[in-house]
């Protein structure tokens, strides 16, 4: 397991370097002079020159990249053009809010999706199975930002039970978490169903049944434990979708997360904050996939010895 962990950790290094290259060139890929774009149309030549110097754009490219990498390693992402605050201080409080939303949505999706998938698998091709698979397909096809708006119409406008948006108590979290969870429920239900159906055909399940065990015990004690192994991977695979969905959900509900910050920065053309937010999203994505991979290696020995 130790070797597997080291191998997996080392494999992230080239990816991290690649991300730094992509982020470095992001600013340089802007049409026209990036310093002029950042300074705005009204800026004087002196101001543009100052920004060019601050960004290091007046130095050779390889030195610029080295400088960028060094700053990145110290989490120095520059200052926001809009607020002049360091980018990292803009991002950190927002990151906490996004984490709260993402974790709540994932837990909610597990609570709904996994039991739904089990029910569909143990009663295949019945009305329950059809209901779960149809709802899953609807869930996958429904744009989360539209679902969010429809939930607002239902639970904030027609039935004034929950706030339209913002943050504060738990009541502010309900609608955004349900909206974001909708992206995952379908994937969890589908994968649990197919994994459970496959597990139920295994010899050890037949043995358990022939020993006279109750069906509930066979499913919960023997089948579920093994069927859930591939579902762990789904959490990692779906995490990218979850982060993308967070950007839209946070916008719908004015949830002060990093996704909302990213959209605000794009609209304000605040490039240092855009760079920083995208970097944090990529790091989160890599980190969660790394944890999922390590967890998978831990619970399924076949993976780490492969």
């Amino acid at each position: 397991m130790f070797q597997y962990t080291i191998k997996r950790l080392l494999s992230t290094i080239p990816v991290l370097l690649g991300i730094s290259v992509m982020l470095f060139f992001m600013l340089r890929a802007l049409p026209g002079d990036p310093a002029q774009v950042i300074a705005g149309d009204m800026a004087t030549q002196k101001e543009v020159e100052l920004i060019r110097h601050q960004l290091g754009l007046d130095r050779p490219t390889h030195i610029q990249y080295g400088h960028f990498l060094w700053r990145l390693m110290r989490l120095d992402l520059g200052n926001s053009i809009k607020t002049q605050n360091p980018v990292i201080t803009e991002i950190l409080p927002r990151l906490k809010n996004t984490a709260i939303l993402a974790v709540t949505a994932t837990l909610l999706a597990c609570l709904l999706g996994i039991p739904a998938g089990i029910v569909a698998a143990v009663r295949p091709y019945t009305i329950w199975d059809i209901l779960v698979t149809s709802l899953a397909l609807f869930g996958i096809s429904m744009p989360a930002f539209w679902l969010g708006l429809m939930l607002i119409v239902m639970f904030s406008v027609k039935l004034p039970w929950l706030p339209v948006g913002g943050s504060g108590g738990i009541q502010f979290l309900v609608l955004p978490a349900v909206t974001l969870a909708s992206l995952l429920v379908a994937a969890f239900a589908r994968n649990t169903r197919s994994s459970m159906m496959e597990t139920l055909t295994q010899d050890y399940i037949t043995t358990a049944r022939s020993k006279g065990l109750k069906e509930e015990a066979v499913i919960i004690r023997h089948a579920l434990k093994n069927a859930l192994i591939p579902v762990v991977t789904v959490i990692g695979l779906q995490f990218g979708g979850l982060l993308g969905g967070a950007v839209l959900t946070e916008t719908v509900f004015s949830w002060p997360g990093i996704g909302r910050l990213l959209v605000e920065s794009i609209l304000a053309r605040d490039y240092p904050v855009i760079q920083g937010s995208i970097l944090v999203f990529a790091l989160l994505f890599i980190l969660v996939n790394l944890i999922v991979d390590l967890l998978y290696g831990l619970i399924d020995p076949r993976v780490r010895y492969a």
Partner: protein
Amino acid sequence: MHDFESSRIEHGRFKRGFSKLLRNKAACFGGLVILLFLLTAVSAPLIHPKNPNVQDIRHSLERPSWNNLLGTDELGRSILGRIVYGSRISLTIGLGAIALGLIVGVPFGLISGYFGGKIDFIIQRLTDIMLSFPPFLLALGLVSVLGVGLKNTLISVGLSSIPYMIRLVRGVVISIREQVYVEAARAVGTSDGVILYRHILPNVMVPIIVNTTLGMGMAITFAAGLGFLGVGVQPPDPEWGTMLGSGRSLIFAAPHVATFPGLAIFMAVLGFNLLGDGLRDALDPRMKA
């Protein structure tokens, strides 16, 4: 002789798959929905002769009625008319983005999987980097650099689909490059280009068709998401996500402004997902999750 045989097998496989697809009611429903959207896009001026961008403030925010089946928006424009014309934009972006993904992704996937070695290593590390960004965020990041508008939305969504296409094609190629018929073609001195085109590409077609269909739904959702955030297609162009974005601020006064464009996105994506699922079951059930 061998070419004839392999193309006959492929033809038979597609024919069997097609008849299986026709027996799948959900997939047929999905196909019908897509056909309806395509017909709507093609015949938009016949369905709604009035320019969908023409404003009529006197009739703003009217609820659905016989005069305006889906009501009007804040500028008095028919929501039905804008959804009808919006189907042109959404399908254009969907098709264009998928085409971009195919044009770049398929050749790179074929080369990476077939040749292996250093070239595979380089392509895969580049793919790894692109895959380390969640796909919607990659599209969002690209649009922030390229700028807003229809063309840039199409390019951003298309570019974000490339790494997935490369991985898919490479995976299939690796599984078939050591097959006897490929070895045989190599043994008789057939060039790599011909092997890739004649023997490998036809076998990659099934997963490409399935994923392209499912990818269309995703491309439409991504484009709508960008439009909703205000960084995709810009008003007054009637893109569904952009319409939904402007309807957001009217959610208390006129919920219908946001409801119907969202329903259009949902139906179109559902159509592509149903057809994609049906195609997968009919052509390659092994791919089923």
